[in-house]
């Protein structure tokens, strides 16, 4: 993992910690309309009122008052790769990103610190009316569209960290795909935290109009810092009639990051939403991408993988709520724990009375790489409709001595044997990724494996 910190000058950095004055400052700095300032302040009040969640991972070491909530880098918005400062290009280089970046140059939005530094939208999409902006710019340039959907899927009172994000959000992507427009190339954004103790509170909103289709890819890596960093994003997806949204995340946070993210989608009639979510690194991750199947024949799929190493707790999973007839969903969750790490699957599957003839299949598989590690499954299934067809399978397996011996007896070293078995386990996940991400995942897995051999 890349863990080198780059020297960094920031033009504007609010004080550590959080209060009304800091939130007001953030809003003023961004020249936001009054309704947004009010929204932030209200969210702050909710954040302060709500207790820390105690039902999941241990958050007792997280001190919200020891974090910078806003930093604006010197570099302002850029639209061409040539205009990107070399220092930032170097950062991308170290992340091993440039091939992917350059290949998809036209469609990249990347976040450096709290602001979009670089974004460019391919011309043909612009002509079709596609918007791919940083969320702050979208608020300025498309206020009506913004206000119509912003925080409608995840309101501030949804949970404590959604409230926090609502109060201090900065950056993130805003994607709008007009009716019947199919974007055939993934939109990509790379995120990075680069200032010590700085929180990352991006806010992403994707709106797919009827009959449209988009694939958004988000990748992350963070440098190592001594104090705990907090990443708390909110991602909202609105999939209108017969639209398709696929949202892919590959996260590789450094081992001191608290990664507490709220992701939710609403799928209207015949819409199709997919969350593909890979969680590596971080100290604690709590993330449960959700899909509300609101219209008839809507489909939802969540495929997630979590790798928990030493000192890490990946508390991840998915939630699907069937609210309409003939809706279909599928959750595939794969987790691996090693070196005393802990991976938990936490899922919700709910079928309301309205959801006649809906179908759902949940499959969660955990792989333990050693005796020290831990895996838990917390599935909640609530079915209020008897015509629904629900399947739930869970398995916990170990990389068994017998499997290792079998592969070793064919000449593979113990490390190679372990790697081939682990790669087989996550195959279903990797298959769903675009090629360059599949390569990145394999590289990450190989690096994770290096550390796990005793």
């Amino acid at each position, binding site marked *: 993992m890349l863990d080198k910190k780059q020297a960094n000058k920031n033009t504007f950095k609010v004080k550590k910690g959080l209060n009304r004055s800091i939130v007001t400052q953030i809003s003023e700095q961004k020249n936001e309309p009054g309704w947004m300032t009010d929204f932030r302040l209200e969210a702050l009040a909710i954040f302060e009122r709500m207790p820390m969640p105690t039902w999941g991972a241990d958050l007792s070491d997280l001190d919200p008052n020891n974090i910078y909530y806003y930093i604006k880098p010197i570099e302002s918005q850029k639209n061409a790769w040539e205009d990107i400062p070399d220092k930032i290009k170097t950062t991308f280089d170290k992340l091993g990103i440039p091939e992917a970046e350059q290949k998809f140059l036209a469609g990249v939005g990347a976040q450096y610190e709290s602001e979009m530094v670089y974004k460019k939208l391919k011309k043909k999409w612009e002509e079709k009316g596609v918007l791919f902006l940083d969320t702050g710019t979208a608020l300025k340039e498309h206020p009506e569209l913004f206000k119509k959907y912003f925080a409608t899927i995840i309101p501030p009172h949804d949970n404590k960290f959604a409230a926090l994000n609502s109060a201090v959000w900065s950056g993130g992507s805003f994607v709008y795909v007009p009716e019947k427009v199919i974007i055939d190339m993934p939109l990509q954004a790379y995120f990075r935290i680069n200032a010590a103790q700085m929180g990352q509170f991006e806010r992403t909103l994707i709106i797919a109009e009827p009959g449209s289709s988009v694939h958004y890819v988000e990748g992350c890596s963070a440098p190592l810092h001594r104090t705990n960093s907090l990443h708390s994003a909110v991602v909202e997806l609105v999939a209108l009639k017969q639209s398709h949204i696929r949202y892919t995340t590959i996260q590789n946070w450094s081992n001191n990051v608290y990664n507490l993210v709220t992701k939710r989608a609403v799928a209207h009639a015949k819409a199709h939403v997919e969350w593909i979510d890979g969680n590596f690194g971080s100290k604690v991750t709590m993330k449960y991408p959700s899909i509300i199947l609101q219209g008839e024949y809507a489909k939802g799929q969540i495929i997630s993988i979590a790798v928990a190493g030493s000192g890490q707790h990946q508390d991840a999973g998915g939630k699907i709520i069937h609210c309409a007839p003939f809706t279909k969903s599928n959750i595939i969750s794969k987790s691996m724990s090693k070196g005393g790490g802990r991976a938990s699957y936490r899922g919700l599957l709910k079928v309301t009375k309205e959801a006649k003839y809906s179908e759902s299949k949940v499959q969660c598989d955990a792989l333990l790489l050693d005796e020290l590690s831990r895996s838990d499954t917390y599935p909640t299934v609530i079915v209020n409709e008897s015509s629904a067809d629900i399947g739930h399978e869970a398995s916990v397996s170990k990389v068994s001595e017998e*499997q290792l*011996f079998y592969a070793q*007896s*064919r000449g*593979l070293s113990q490390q190679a044997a372990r790697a081939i*078995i682990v*790669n*087989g386990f996550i195959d279903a996940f990797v298959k769903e990724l675009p090629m360059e991400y599949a390569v990145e995942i394999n590289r990450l897995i190989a690096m994770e494996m290096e550390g796990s051999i005793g």
Partner: protein
Amino acid sequence: MLEIKNLKVTVDDIEILQGIDLSVQPGSIHAIMGPNGSGKSTLAYTLMGHPAYTVTAGTVFLQDGERVLLQDQSQNQDQSQSIDQNQSQNQDQSQKIDVLSLSPDKRAKAGIFLSFQQPLVLAGVRADIFLLEAYRAVTGHMISVPDFTQLLEKLIERLGISHTFIVRNVNEGFSGGEKKKFELLQLALLKPKIAILDEIDSGLDIDALKSVADGLSYIRKENPAMSFIIITHYRRILDYIRPDQVHIIDKGILVASGDYRLIDTLESRGYEVYRAESRVGDI
């Protein structure tokens, strides 16, 4: 050749093998027969280096003349000056490989192969990719994918294996017969010096058995110097492949050894005669 001397093995502190002596010449076929729990599979696993089997006494050496000679020939073409020196050095090294000191993957590279009685499922691992990795690891030759594919195609055709088979995951959803065929495919590909077949005939119907036996005959024809240790309960596989020597094992000791006619005697008189306590000795 493989030389096993006074091999004693414990599992969970219980002595399973109580002093096995066995000498396997290049190109020879040995059958080891015995009742359940006699130590047949323990011998197989121990030779391959399974970590659950603890060797408490004895030695296993592999004479490695042939492969080194081949290496020398290739070196001769490049470095004709140092032939003699190389040869003598390599022969010194090749005198004896201490099998018991090696990890399973190194034993595979030294030329030992175990066909598993119950081959393991490797979920999500495609068979052809597994075979490629194994081939590269054992031979040390970074064969190109097209060359490997060609090699694989030839072997699966000869062994009567379906083409769809190798793009499936290793042993996942394979029938009993398919699993044994997949073991044979690995054997044909890796060309070991010593092939240990642990109950390759178990769980097979007559047709599948015939097909496995045909595969074995093909592999033997292609690799005349390959030695076989065939571990089995029953004679039926041995009717297809006649062993040079038959050994009867009971309670961790080879209680009788002889040529293939020993199978007939065993057939008519049963294992009871060869119980370790009775100590019949060689016939």
